[in-house]
């Protein structure tokens, strides 16, 4: 009895010490997880997660200091990917499932103040001072920073329209989407 307890305890102590030593000496300087997480993020440095840019958010995620639901432009898709990578279950309850959006500028209200072009981190808005601005949809990732800063509310966020080229069949048996036809 005593021998059994003793030997098990000895094994435990030895292995524990070994693990502790290994953790100290074999520690990886840079967290590879960080780079992997960064690759999943949109990379547009919009800063809406509360961090300076995507790299900082990735770092915080890797250290477990940030929630996976903070990336606004990434939406549900990115949240799910992050959750899978980190092995956590994302709380999507407070997350409204909206389709990807792009900014749209209403000509009638745009005064050409250039604030949105300065705000945009992907140069997706073109325009000169006192002239109508336009969004290049292919470069817009829907971070909505321009939408928030526009002084005349000329910018609206619109869902990316489905075209004949991008439409595809839903999964068999899936409930019909809201846009289904009569």
């Amino acid at each position, binding site marked *: 009895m005593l021998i059994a307890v003793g030997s098990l305890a000895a094994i435990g102590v030895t292995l524990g010490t070994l693990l502790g030593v290994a953790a100290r000496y074999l520690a990886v300087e840079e967290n590879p997880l960080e780079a992997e997480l960064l690759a999943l993020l*949109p990379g547009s440095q919009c800063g809406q997660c509360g961090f300076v840019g995507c790299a900082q958010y990735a770092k915080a995620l890797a250290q477990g200091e940030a929630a996976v639901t903070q990336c606004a432009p990434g939406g549900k*898709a990115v949240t799910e990917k992050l959750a899978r990578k980190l092995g956590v279950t994302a709380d999507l309850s407070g997350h409204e499932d909206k389709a990807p959006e792009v900014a749209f500028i209403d000509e009638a209200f745009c005064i050409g103040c250039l604030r949105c072009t300065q705000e*945009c981190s992907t140069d997706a808005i073109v325009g000169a001072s006192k002239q109508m601005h336009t969004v290049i949809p292919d470069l817009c*990732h829907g971070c909505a920073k321009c939408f928030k800063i526009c002084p005349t509310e000329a910018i609206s966020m619109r869902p990316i329209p*489905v075209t*004949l080229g*991008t439409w*595809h069949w839903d999964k068999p048996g899936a409930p019909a989407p809201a846009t289904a036809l009569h």
Partner: protein
Amino acid sequence: MKLFPVRGGVHPDYRKERTAECAIEAMPMPARLCIPLQQHIGAPAEPLVAEGERVRKGQTLAHSQGALSAPVHAPTSGRIAAITEITAPHPSALPLLTIVLESDGLDEWADLPPPIPDPLSAPPEAIRARVAEAGIVGMGGATFPSAVKLGLGTNHKLDVLVLNGAECEPYLTCDDRVMREHADEVIDGARIMAHALGAPRIVVAIESNKPQALEAMARAASAFADTDVVGVPVQYPMGSERHLTQAVTGRETPARKLTADVGVVVHNVGTARAVHHAVRFGRPLLSRVVTVSGGAIAHAKNVDVPLGTMVSELMAFCGGLAAPVQRLVNGGPMMGQPLPTPEVPVIKGTCGILALVPSETNEHRTEPCIRCGSCVTYCPCGLVPVEMAAFIRKDDLDAAARIGVMDCVSCGSCSYVCPSHIPLVHYFNYAKGSLNAQDRDRRKQSRIKEQAQVHTERIEKQAQAKREAAAAAAAARKAQQQTETNADDRASA
């Protein structure tokens, strides 16, 4: 001629007898035509006319926009009533920008471009330009702009033009009738296309269940040594471009490549006839032959339909409905697309309109898969549908992609034979669409990332420049102060 075996495939009930002996009838010109600006793969055409404008038959209504596009023309003379959105002849039922033309009943021709004299010695570019101008697209249903496909000869060494008269889809007999009734036009068009492609040989491939078409085409081709007409085995999907190429030449087109990469270009017989009209008479593509059939159609027919005719009007021309329709299909029953409503126009790729009743569709409740392996045996692409569908059901699209879902041509053979009535092709269509969307997203994302990088660097550079300017200014100021101090010192000294 030696033929080569093709893997898999099914032998569906062909049901062609109902229309095979129906000569092509011309549809009377409808009072209103709805001509969508996108009837092809690629960018939509851009309107050249305005509401209220009067146009004449054959006049270009919208011209092509970009390298991959096709113009549309007025099928008759009349007034542009509107340029508006209507429901697309597509399962999505998305709105599609459409020119609505009200016929004036005069059917008055516009000035057409002159015929190309001696097209078989004309430069290939001239033929391609004419085909592009005539708005011709793949008439077999793929609707790929034909002029672009005729340009494949410029960067590929081609040796055969295969003219696709297989018409392996059940019900459809429009190509059969075109070959029987207009064999000379088809052969002439094919020779013009072969010349444009630089292909020295033409093989007309027709499924051997169309003996009259084979005979008519062989007669029309008998004068030309470089043109062969062959009967290929009756085996669905023989009309698939890659499989037909394999059957005729024995060459297997590598995945993600074109048949042109193995020296073959495949064009539909209807396309060849349209090319003949465009080159010899300057006539653009204004109408097409459509097979109207299915158990619910009162009088099944082959109809020469002006593009833009409503499907409902076309069905009315065929005696209307004799029974409730379960499925209204645009194209053949295997690869055709369901139509959301008959209030959609006939477009360039509409080869058939089928109003099917339950006894024809034979739809049943889905049962559990019993792993019988029929789908594997019959898949003409050598895929394992049972496993791909299992992955897709579990939302593991990447695993499905790894075992080849993107190589699926959606021919429908697996769904057709499945004893459990599992909608396999639906799963694959979903997976392919979803994976393509993911791919588009990824590409957009990486472009945005690059752009963000450029943006950050520019901001950084500007800041740097500002700092340097500030530093320079400060240094200058300091230097000046220094000189002043020195001067003061000297002065005081």
